[in-house]
């Protein structure tokens, strides 16, 4: 059992490292993710910065930017495999679970890097003062994991179609609606200064969503990937 586990970990890390190396050399996803987020935040702050926005609106703006940035970049993990005709040899070489988890962790890291850039920018541009940092970071972390897991499995589905970009947003939206709604709510609670336990329901929901989504993705992925 430990050997099988370490074998799994080695292969997931191998896929993850390949994605990092590949992204570092091609900037296939990163540039579009960051550019989209920075441009949107800047335009939004110029357009609505003069108005006194409520905490709910500010929280919603952060997650809207993160959602659409994800749509513009995270799907590339599977789309590029199909477009560059590397998917077949990968299918023969690795088990579907290794591929899915390797690519999921890569998307997650990409999203975290995006947040390292965009969240401080958001806090400055919209003059947001986070009062409960532990809740804010917990919601940001869990919301990102939910976003990455859903986008990764949907990306695998749409990579085999002709309308990749459009379909990704259409299919992801209903699945991500609960995550976005709860993350916005959790962020608002963190910004308004309520204690951590006030947002505990949101944290529990996000955690449950991730468990369900990752389990369903792992069960579905082989069918999606091998079809």
């Amino acid at each position, binding site marked *: 059992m430990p050997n099988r586990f370490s*074998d799994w970990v080695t292969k997931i890390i191998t896929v993850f490292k390949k994605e990092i190396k590949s992204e570092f*050399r091609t900037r296939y996803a990163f540039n579009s993710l960051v550019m989209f987020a920075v441009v949107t935040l800047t335009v939004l702050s110029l357009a609505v910065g003069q108005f006194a926005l409520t905490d709910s609106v500010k929280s919603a703006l952060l997650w809207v930017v993160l959602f659409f940035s994800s749509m513009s970049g995270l799907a590339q993990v599977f789309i590029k495999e199909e477009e*560059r*005709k*590397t998917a*077949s040899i990968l299918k023969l*070489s690795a088990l579907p679970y290794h591929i899915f988890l390797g690519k999921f962790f890569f998307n997650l890291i990409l999203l975290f890097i995006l947040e390292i850039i965009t969240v401080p920018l958001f806090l400055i541009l919209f003059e947001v003062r986070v009062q409960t940092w532990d809740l804010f970071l917990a919601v940001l972390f869990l919301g990102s994991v939910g976003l990455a897991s859903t986008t990764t499995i949907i990306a695998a589905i749409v990579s085999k179609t002709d309308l990749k970009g459009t379909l990704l947003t259409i299919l992801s939206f209903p699945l991500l609606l609960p995550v976005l709604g709860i993350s916005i709510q959790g962020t608002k609670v963190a910004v308004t200064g309520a204690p951590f336990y006030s947002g505990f329901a949101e944290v529990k929901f996000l955690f449950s969503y991730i468990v369900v989504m990752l389990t369903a993705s792992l069960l579905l992925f082989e069918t999606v990937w*091998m079809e």
Partner: protein
Amino acid sequence: MLLIELENISKWFGERQVFENINLKLESPASLAIIGPNGCGKTTLLKIICGLIRPSRGKVRIKLDGQEVGKEAKRAFCSIVAPDLELYEELTALENLEFFTVLRDFKSSRAELNQKLEQVGLKDRGHEPVGSYSSGMKQRLKYAVALSVSPQVLILDEPSSNLDEEGIFLMEKLIENQKKDRLVILATNALKETQYAQQIFRLGN
């Protein structure tokens, strides 16, 4: 000893039937050439054998010493070289080799990987990105990747495409080695390439 059995394999793409009720039995060591006109389903049949495409009907069985192997192990027995299967262009040849060997449980040292590249005449080009390779060099690298995991079944689609004379000579040597104790299945339009196989299977009319 490895046995591949194709039992009543049929394939449709939508309304179009590519082939119907193909029955085949191959026992290692052996080599088979699949020939036939364009569009008769040679590549599709190769992909069905290695598990990349599901047949519409029928079953592919792989038996090792009389025991049927599972779905996941089945894929691990096959390596394929085909024009529509590409390697990662942004990675170097050595990185590609390392990536695929680790994923297929073959932990090879850098020296061993370099040796694989030497076998296909790419010894000094291992640190260059595959994107900078010519199409012939990419084909050679596909052979290195396919053979780096010592596959029980080597599947070749148009085996000499893009290769120069020296490349064809190297490829012939690799096929001869593989044929000695394992299986080689190739699909080709060039009658000259059927000489690499002991048996011929004709698809289509």
